[in-house]
Every structure is written in C-alpha cells, then in structure tokens.
C-alpha cells in the first residue's frame, strides 16, 4: 500500500510539474490565441465636405461606431508597450454630427479626448468591453 502511494505520488508530481512547465513555456502563445484579435484604424481630422482645416471634427468608418441617437460609442486600443501588439481596450463617447455611406462625422463628447492618434477598433474576433486585453492584428493588403 505504502509503495503504491509513493508510486502514485511520483507519477502525479511528474505530470503536475510537466504540465506547469509546458503551460509556462507556451503561456504567451496560449494567451495570444485566447485574446480577442482586433483590427484598428485611425480617424481623419476632416468633415464630410472634405475640409481639413477644422477643429474637433473627425471622420471615422461606420464599422467603428455603435450609434445611439445623436451620440455613439467607439472602442480604441492602447498598446501596453510601444513595440508590442497587446493592448487594453477603452470606451469613448462621441457626438455624431453627420454621416454618408462610408463615414460618420463626429466630435468630442462629455469632455472625452478624441484625437487622430487613437487606434479605433473596427473589427474584433470576440466581444470586447472597457478594460479588456486584446491583440492587435495588422491588416494585410494585397500587393496588387
């Protein structure tokens, strides 16, 4: 009986430590696979008429925004490190001024700072919410 307990203990120890070692070694890969993958774009300082010499009016693609009356919600990704592709998601409220087939013209709302440098999320592989961690995927364009 004692010998059996010893044998089971050794087997369990080997399995436990091997499992933890494998999970640690592949932790970055596993974490990246499980994170929502998002694609981002930047806003353009302009209005729908094409005026660029303006203040606090931005054009953003329609896929970026969730509209609710005269306001909308956008999500942007802020990279955790400058060179890494991992980021935290933050929510931002904007006021909608107008729209055409492709774009919404928006401005700052409730004191939120909207700038052209924000990485606006237009596509995500999973549902995201404020404060989530995500992985930014670079858009691949055909050379043609």
């Amino acid at each position: 009986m004692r010998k059996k307990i010893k044998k089971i203990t050794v087997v369990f120890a080997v399995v436990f430590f091997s499992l933890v070692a494998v999970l640690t070694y592949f932790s970055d890969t596993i974490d990246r696979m499980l994170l929502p993958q998002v694609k981002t774009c930047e806003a353009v300082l302009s209005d729908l008429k094409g005026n660029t010499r303006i203040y606090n009016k931005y054009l953003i693609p329609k896929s970026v925004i969730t509209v609710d009356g005269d306001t909308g919600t956008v999500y942007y990704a802020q990279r955790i490190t400058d060179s890494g592709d991992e980021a935290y998601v933050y929510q931002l409220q904007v006021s909608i001024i107008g729209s055409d087939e492709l774009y919404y013209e928006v401005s700052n709302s409730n004191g939120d700072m909207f700038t052209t440098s924000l990485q606006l999320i237009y596509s995500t592989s999973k549902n995201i919410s404020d404060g989530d961690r995500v992985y930014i995927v670079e858009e691949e364009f055909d050379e043609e």
Partner: protein
Amino acid sequence: MKKTKSVFKYIILILLTAVFLFPIIYMLANSFMQSGEIEKTLNFSEETFKSVNLIPDMFSAEQYYEVFFRRAEYLLKFWNSVIITLPTVILQVVFSSLAAFAFAKLKFPFRDKLFFIYIVLLILPLQVTLVPNYIVMDNLKILNTFLSVILPGTFSAFGICLLRQSIKYISYSSIEAARIDGASYLRIFTRIIIPQIKGGLVTLTLLTFIDSWSAVEQPMIYFTDKGMYPLSITLSDIADSDYGIIFACGVMFLIPPLLIYLYGENDIRSPFTTSDKL
C-alpha cells in the same frame, strides 16, 4: 463509561481536525467560485468578511483557467519558488548531514564548543540576521539574484541539530568496524550513516522545503526586481491581487509540499530512529 470516554475523545478530535482543515477547505471551495461570488463574500480592502460560504452557488473553474492559461505571471512566480526552494533544500540536506556526522561521530578540537555556537545561531530569529545578511550579500554583489536567498538558507543550525540527534543513535561499533575494514569517512557516511538516518533526512527535507517554499521576508528584502518574487509573496499580498486567483494559486502552491509529505510519510514518522527497513 469507557465507550462514552472514547466517543467524547473522537468528538474533540473531529472538532480539532475541522478547525485545522477549515482554511484548506475554505481555499478549495473559494477556488471553485466565480470572481463575482467571491467578491460578494469577501472584502479585503475594508477588512471585512461579509459571509462564509463553503458551497459555490455555481461550480466554476474560472480561477484555474485564469491562472493556468491567461495569467502567465503566476506560473512564472511558481517557477521562481521552485528555483529558490530546490537548491536550498538539496544543499541544506547535504551540508547539514555532513556537519551533523562530524559533530556526532568525529573527534576534533573544540567540537562541542563549535556545536554550542551552532545552538546559539539556532536561537536567533530570522529577522535579526536579515540586515547583516543584506550587507554581506551587497558586498558579495549577489543582491537581486536568486543566490541571495538560496545561500543563507543553505546553512541551517536546525538541520544540523536534527540530524546530529539521528546520527547519535548509530553505534560507534559499526563505524569502527568499517574503519578496520579500510573504509574512508566519506564511505562510512554514504554507506553506513545515510541509510540509517533516512527518517531524519526526509523530515529535514520537508521542513526545509516548507520553510523555503513559504519564504516572504527574504525575497522582499533581497530582490528589487518584482519579477523574481516567488508565489508566496503574491499569496500574502491580498491588497493588490485578485481574490479568486489567489485561492486558485493557493491550491497550486499547496501541491508540492503535499506531494513531498505523501512521498516521505512513512519515513517521517521516525526521524530519531533508524529506518523501518533496516
């Protein structure tokens, strides 16, 4: 009358067991709760227990999923604990057994006076030696390395005292017989002494493992890089950690000492006597 006494004795024992097992059962139960449910019952920031719940409303492996798949920092801290503990245990057992053999069976000048100094070291609390050790580590330029925690843990007065008592039980006649047969002291140590102090070695291994595995003060003082902190510090840092994850980490943290105990359970029962097999 005898039966009533026996029942009363068992009731007391069961109650005592329940009291000692409560923290482990509580940790296990909470590790299978969802984070929202744990936050409902605990509030460490206000230092209040809202309620004690040992049965999860909804059984969930969310905390384990977070620890093993999403939060690599806890796995890395687990390995930091292993890196600190494993060499400390191995080296301490080796050095303590050699020193204990010398103090118990070899004859050399000032032997008993030196052993008295070891006993004095045993009485010193850990906190007393932290600052002198820090200065030594600083001079050796090994601060903020794992060696700064491993080295002081390697030499233990307690280990030497424990093993010296075990070795004292071994008769001089077997050692003298081996000497007559031409065996060196190293051969006597490995072939005669070690097999007979198995219980003491396993006891020392387990106690050193638990001591080193749960070290908090030394890494906090000797390490400036928080990435080198062992899991024991994270478990005690309840203010900055996620409650649910702490419980799951606690279960992971509990497994290695438990495995060592189960492995050496038979030998640990008799640290001052010879092994049952002999």
